[in-house]
């Protein structure tokens, strides 16, 4: 019994030394060797290394080898691909040209101001979702930003809270709130016009709509026109970036899907 105990301690010591020494490489090599001994079937095939001998490197960068379970689960892929194509066609042939024409009529500083105005109006959504995530400091910052920008920023057309006071906005939506409380993204859904989303974020849009001032405009037509202006204005400000990233894609759907999911994951972690 004693010898077993001593042996175990010695082993832990050796591994501890290897792990905490600067020579992490030695540790991983030792583990590799141990793994190879224990699992001869899973041994590495060095022969396949080829001229680049890439195998050692794949071992050192296994962060990319593990893919989250839910990402592989894409039951709506057929529909999603179709809707991605519809949205993209709409973007290329309708939204983008409209935004470009709008962009030549309304100069950029004015469009930026319009964008800030609409962003300012979404304050209730940001406040509620910061509070729901117990982010009280950010909720306070948002409140100060809203008060300051609505008054000194001339109804939110300007953002002196950021440029003068250095108060960064902290956008939070209900999808992020759900994520914060542990709700997983669920499967991916491409929404008509709105683009990439997932089950959680799509459902999260519901509560957020009730907090948007536009919901309380009585007249449907006015509401629609205002939403249209907001969208056209927003798109006119991102065509450059959207075009630059869009053409990097080999598979547009997979590209948008993963970019969306990775971005949302990071936003929720923050």
């Amino acid at each position, binding site marked *: 019994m004693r010898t077993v105990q001593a042996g175990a301690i010695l082993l832990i010591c050796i591994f501890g030394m290897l792990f905490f020494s600067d020579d992490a490489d030695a540790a991983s090599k030792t583990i590799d060797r141990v793994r190879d001994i224990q699992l001869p079937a899973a041994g590495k095939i060095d022969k396949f290394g080829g*001229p680049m001998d890439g195998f050692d490197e794949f071992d050192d960068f296994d962060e990319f080898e593990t893919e989250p379970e839910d990402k592989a689960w894409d039951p709506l892929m057929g529909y999603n691909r179709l809707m991605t194509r519809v949205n993209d066609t709409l973007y290329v042939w309708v939204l983008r040209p409209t935004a470009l024409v709008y962009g030549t009529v309304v100069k950029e500083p004015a469009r930026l101001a319009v964008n800030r105005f609409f962003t300012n109006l979404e304050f209730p959504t940001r406040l509620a979702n910061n509070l729901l995530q117990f982010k009280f400091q950010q909720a306070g910052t948002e409140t100060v930003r809203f008060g300051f920008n609505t008054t000194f920023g001339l109804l939110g057309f300007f953002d002196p809270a950021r440029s003068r006071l250095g108060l960064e*906005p902290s956008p939070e939506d209900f999808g992020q709130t759900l994520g914060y409380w542990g709700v997983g993204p669920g499967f991916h859904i491409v929404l008509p016009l709105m683009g990439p989303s997932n089950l959680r974020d799509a459902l999260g849009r519901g509560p957020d709509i009730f907090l948007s001032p536009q919901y309380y405009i009585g007249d449907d037509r006015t509401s629609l026109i205002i939403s249209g202006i907001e969208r056209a204005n927003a798109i006119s400000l991102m065509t*450059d970036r959207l075009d630059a990233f*869009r053409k990097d894609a080999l598979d547009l759907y997979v*590209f948008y899907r993963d970019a969306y999911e*990775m971005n949302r994951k990071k936003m929720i972690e923050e």
Partner: protein
Amino acid sequence: MRKAVFCITLTLMLLTAAFPAAAEQKAAVEALLKSQVDAVLQILKQKEMPDAQKHEKIMEIIGPTFDFELMSRLTLGRANWMKFSAREQATFIDLFVARLKKTYLEKTSLYTDEAVIYRPAVVVGDKIHASVGIVTEGKTVEIAYKFYAAGDQWKIYDVEVEGVSLVMSYRSQFNQIMQKGTPNDLLDELRKGEISPPA
């Protein structure tokens, strides 16, 4: 018992010895990234310089730090890499490195004198991630550069823009192609180049 105490003490000693080294390495990576970004911005700010010349100078600066070859291999992934013959592997590296360089250089034209904030580096396993924030209208865009130790030098093996990893986003697209296709299909896709730009 005595052995256990000795062991814990030893481990703790080694642990504390490792920390200053990490701080030093973080500082080295932060300095490297700052010098690179500063040098690139210097060139981008010269408005009268023709694009071709800008691109050439930028590649001279970042070439030694960006490990484009490793990025390519990681993007393909171990499982797919094994399906490629040595010749196909070499062709893939050639095509994809060219593409990476091209897409990177194209993105530089999106820069319009925004201020850059340097964030403190973070140690992640044996890698170091260093980030910059680009202060754009409305929000600050975070770009994380992931460094690994290549001998006595730190090199970049992945870039994350707002959480979107360059390697990961190409990787799943390649996986998609390789699910049904052959290595040649993938190479053809790369040769075809980009999705046609909007009319």
